[in-house]
């Protein structure tokens, strides 16, 4: 460990603002690039499962595609 206190980590001899700003502006977009496709997959997946349930209940009750 190079720094000896938390405030030294934060201040970084005057460069803290630049270093932490750079890391924040990296972490946020990276987290989004991972999270957004996961969210998209989950949405599609739920849609697929709902579609399957609709198809299953339609075949059980004997209704056709139009629901009559």
């Amino acid at each position: 460990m190079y720094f000896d206190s938390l405030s030294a980590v934060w201040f970084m001899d005057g460069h803290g603002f630049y270093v932490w700003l750079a890391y924040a502006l990296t972490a946020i977009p990276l987290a989004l690039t991972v999270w957004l496709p996961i969210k998209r997959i989950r949405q599609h997946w739920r849609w697929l499962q709902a579609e399957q349930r609709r198809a299953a209940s339609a075949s059980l009750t004997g209704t056709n595609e139009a629901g009559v």
Partner: protein
Amino acid sequence: MWSIIHKMGSPPWFFRFSGTLVRWLLPVTISLLLVGAFWGLLVAPPDFRQGNSYRIIYIHVPAAVVALAGYYVMALAGAVSLIWRIKMADITMRAAAPVGAVLTAIALVTGAIWGKPTWGAWWVWDARITSMLILFFLYLGVVALFQAYENKTAAARACAVLSLVGTVNIPIIYKSVDWWYSLHQPASIKFTGESAIDSSMLYPLLLMILAFYCLFALTVLLNMRADLVWAHRESSWLKQLAGGA
């Protein structure tokens, strides 16, 4: 060899394989990033000249390195999709473009933040920085071009041509620091001969580069899976998977 390529082109096989891979890659990538950032930010010694501002290197260099490598992945996938008309190659190309754009943007933004305390300016029209900006526009171009076309087969072809033409920029970026008198410093890590960076700073940097490569693979796979689920929503193999889950 050909059987692997054949399998890769099969969406059901790829979907299952990438699912397993993603489940492994996600925790590995997050751990590597956390350890690398901790090491680079808190453990590594400060630079003799730049002090602590140099710690931006642990995100700036990995983002730039993988943004360049990612362009090769995108252009290669574009070439495969153009020549052999393999649908999976087209999906790979489109999955890589937004990730590459984000990484290039990170390299540019962190470079600007690093430039302020080091060079005294947020932005200079330096050869390396300008060619990276062109790389950013190339990535965005591929994303935008695909959206612009109604006919998605034509869109994929146009994107592949654009990404192939754009590869001209890659050696320019690599060589920019040697060809022009540049403010940006040349590479410190060399595969042959001694690196111009001490091992106490080099190891966390290498770890972060590895972490960013994993992150690139992970996000490209995730984008591909999201694309596949939607494109194959009417396919029986996917319905079977969704029904069984």
